[in-house]
């Protein structure tokens, strides 16, 4: 892998020889990757290649699984995340999951500020109102839900729920947003809305997105990493990786020979 493609960009997150797995069996093998700041980086690869496990190491969600193991380094602004308290780390690195998972007992409003209220933060009503409106506008959800802020989040459509989950993560003002196949459970129209939203977030937050949807990676990402069987095969600017892949396996994956 060449690092030269990244010299123009500022790196916010870096993994060094990251190896992780369960029950003594590794599913991620020595992945070293530098994620550029304020860009969208897609982690692409066939199902079961370890891309989700790789991502969950970044915010230390991986270690919540029983019998999980991890080695190597993950550096956030040069600081090893395994030396940061996971609670603090996860406030700096937000995450959105495959299936929308708004808190079913909370209203839309309370879902957005859940990161604050669940942690027992005391806030003025006006501050909260401001965060809710600002975040919902940023996630293009405001016009759709402004009259239903106090209804439960589970009444929304799947796509709206997923945007609510993105809003919930963004409300914490994270430096990095991890998206784990955020559109795989959604219909094409909702998928388009989420993709549009991701593109609009460029420049204000760093996004790392796992996907097995090749066209989606091509549409929305600035950089793409191709992972196969737990190894990083190729990493580079999306337009280069898609047009002139250096590795034969990347070429085969992009042309649909496997995956």
């Amino acid at each position: 892998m060449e690092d030269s493609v990244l010299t123009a960009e500022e790196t916010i997150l870096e993994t060094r020889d990251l190896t992780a797995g369960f029950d003594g069996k590794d599913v991620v093998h020595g992945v070293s990757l530098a994620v550029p700041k304020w860009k969208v980086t897609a982690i692409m690869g066939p199902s079961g290649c370890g891309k989700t496990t790789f991502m969950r190491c970044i915010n230390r969600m991986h270690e919540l699984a029983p019998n999980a193991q991890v080695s190597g380094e993950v550096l956030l602004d040069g600081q090893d995340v395994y030396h940061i308290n996971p609670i603090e780390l996860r406030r700096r690195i937000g995450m959105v999951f495959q299936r929308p998972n708004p808190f079913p007992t909370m209203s839309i409003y309370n879902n957005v500020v859940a990161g604050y209220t669940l942690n027992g933060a005391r806030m003025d009503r006006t501050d909260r109102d401001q965060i809710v409106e600002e975040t919902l506008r940023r996630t293009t959800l405001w016009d759709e839900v402004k009259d239903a802020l106090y209804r439960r989040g589970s009444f929304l459509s799947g796509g709206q729920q997923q945007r609510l989950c993105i809003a919930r993560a963004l409300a914490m003002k994270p430096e990095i947003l991890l998206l784990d196949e955020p559109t795989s459970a959604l219909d094409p129209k909702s998928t388009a809305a989420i993709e549009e939203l991701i593109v609009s977030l460029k420049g204000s937050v760093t996004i790392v997105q796992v996907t097995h949807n090749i066209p989606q990676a091509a549409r929305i990402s600035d950089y793409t990493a191709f992972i196969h069987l737990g190894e990083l095969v190729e990493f580079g600017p999306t337009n280069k990786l898609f047009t002139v892949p250096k590795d034969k396996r990347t070429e085969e994956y992009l042309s649909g020979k496997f995956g």
Partner: protein
Amino acid sequence: MRPQMTPRGVRASDPALRGRLRADKAFMGGMLAISMIAVLPLVLILLFIIIRGASSINWQFLTELPKPMGEAGGGISNAIVGTVILIIVASVISMPLGILSGIFLSESGKSGLGRVTRLSVETLMGVPSIVIGIVAYVWVVRPMGHFSALSGGVALAMIMLPVITLSTEETLLLIPMSLREAALALGVSYPRTVLKVILPAGASGVITGALLGVARAAGETAPLLFTSFGSPYMVLDILKPMASLPQTIYFYATSPYPAWQTLAWGASFVLLVLVLVLNLLTKLVTSRWKTQF
């Protein structure tokens, strides 16, 4: 005309098909008859208690104290109040313990301590209530030197505890992992995730379990015979012997006086209504507050 699901209107020319239709009808009829037989005892009990008990229910019965033997009338107000107090004492002890141990079982039920806890709770569920009464007698009555509502509450709490623990565990295990991950990924600490996300999401099940525990404890007689013991007076002090509905029924029903036996029927009716209301309440809680995931 709407198409019929049952082939009632179908003219079966084929004798084999006719035979099958007859077998179908016979099977349905048989099932209906058997389920009627299963429900019959319950209906008979209800009818009996309503006929014999409802006639003795009046304002005086609900608000007055029992009269001494030989005097007509009298009520069971002390037993109603006593049962309510006993249930409150038992709930105060068993609900926090039961809900917390249910949370523990759902969170780390596979650990060594978790397995031991579950085995203990399941065993406690099967312990006969009279044995629990003896334990409460040894633990509370003997050291205090006299019968008390407190000891009765302790006995009932031991009966309620496994019901609450197991239903809390079952409820919380059904809550999807994704919800827990949502909270943890927001940087919410583990205890706060459990108490503020998981527990509220399972609130209806936890409340249902608690109410079922109350319904079960409300009718227990055996452990109360040598703990709360009973009292002909209106007692509000939990350190003193106290009357309760089941114990009152036992006492009056086994007496040789017809007037007292009538009181037992009336008390049975009140207890039945109480348990029925609790059960209806659990149904209401389950249907109204069920969390949609």
